[in-house]
C-alpha cells in the first residue's frame, strides 16, 4: 500500500534522473567508433613542398604518445585552439601530427606561417577521404594514439579546460608503460 502510494513519485524520480543526465549530453558530439581500435591505414602526401607527409607507420611510434589533429585554414575554431597545440611542441614523449582537412596546401601553409607550425609532420587530406576513415565529422578534431591504437578523441577546439583533460589522458597513457 505504501509502495502504491509512492509509485508516482518513484516514476517521476526515474524520469527526472533520466532527463537530468540526458539533457547535459551534447548530441552534436559524435564519438568515433574507432576508440581503442588501430589507426586506419593511410598514406598522405605532404603539404606542397613541406616535409614528408604522414602515414600509418608514423603513428605506430612505440616511444611517443601521438596526438593527431585535423585542421584547416578555413576553420575558425582551429585558429582558436592553436595556442593549445603549441603546448604539445616541447612536451617530452609526445608528438603532434597534423592532417590538413580539405584545404589548399598553399592556404594551410600560410595559416601555419602566420600562427606558427606546431606539427612534427603534416599530411594533406585534400578530399577529406582520410578523415572519413577516422570517423571525423568536422575540424578541429584530435586523437590521442599510443602504439598505433586510438585511445582518446576530442571533438571541437581544445580550450584550456579540455587541455587539462587531454593532459591527464596523456599522463595516464605514459604511466601505463611503467606498470
Amino acid at each position: 500500500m505504501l509502495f502504491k502510494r509512492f509509485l508516482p513519485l518513484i516514476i517521476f524520480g526515474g524520469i527526472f534522473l533520466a532527463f537530468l543526465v540526458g539533457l547535459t549530453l551534447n548530441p552534436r558530439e559524435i564519438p568515433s567508433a574507432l576508440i581503442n581500435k588501430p589507426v586506419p591505414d593511410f598514406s598522405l602526401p605532404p603539404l606542397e613542398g613541406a616535409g614528408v607527409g604522414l602515414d600509418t607507420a608514423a603513428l605506430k611510434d612505440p616511444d611517443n604518445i601521438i596526438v593527431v589533429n585535423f585542421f584547416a585554414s578555413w576553420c575558425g575554431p582551429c585558429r582558436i585552439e592553436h595556442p593549445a597545440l603549441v603546448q604539445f611542441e616541447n612536451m617530452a614523449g609526445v608528438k603532434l601530427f597534423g592532417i590538413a582537412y580539405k584545404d589548399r596546401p598553399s592556404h594551410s601553409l600560410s595559416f601555419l606561417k602566420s600562427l606558427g607550425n606546431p606539427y612534427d609532420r603534416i599530411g594533406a587530406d585534400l578530399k577529406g577521404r582520410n578523415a572519413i576513415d577516422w570517423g571525423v565529422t568536422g575540424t578541429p578534431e584530435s586523437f590521442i594514439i599510443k602504439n598505433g591504437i586510438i585511445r582518446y578523441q576530442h571533438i571541437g577546439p581544445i580550450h584550456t579546460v579540455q587541455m587539462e583533460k587531454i593532459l591527464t589522458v596523456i599522463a595516464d597513457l605514459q604511466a601505463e608503460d611503467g606498470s
Partner: protein
Amino acid sequence: MRFLLIPLLCLTFSLTAAAIGVDKDRLSDPEQEARAQSIMKQLRCLVCQNQSIVESDAGLAVDLRGIVREQVKAGQSDRQILHFMTSRYGDWVLLQPPFKAATLLLWLGPLFLLLIGGYFVFRYVRQKPTTVLTEPLTADEEKRLQQILRENDT
C-alpha cells in the same frame, strides 16, 4: 486553356524542387542509382543531424554520398556499405537504430507502455459498478424523498 495553367505552373516549380540535392556524379545505371539512394536515405548526415545524407548539402554528406555510389558501383552489398559507415561513425550514423541489447528499451519501450495502459483500460472496462448503498434510508428520509419527487413532478 486556363484550367491547364495551374497544373502547368505546379509542374514547373516541382522540377526545381527535384533538382535540390542532385549530384553530378549520379550512377548511370538507374538500378544502381536507386540502390545507392535507398542506402543514402538510411544514413544520417553527421553535420545537420536530423537529415539523411540525401537531404543534406553539407560537405561531409556530399562526400558520404560519393562513397556510397562508389561502393554500389564496386558491387558492395547494402550490408557491407552500412557496415563501412558504422565501423567509422558508430550506430549513430544509421537513422534507424539497430535492434540490440543497448536499444531494447528504445524498441520495446512503447510496446511496454501500451501493455501497461491496456491493462488499466481493461481493468476499468471490466469493473463492476461500485455504487453500493451503505445504509438503507430511514422512514423519515424515505418520506422526504417521495415529497421531493412529487414536488418536481408538479
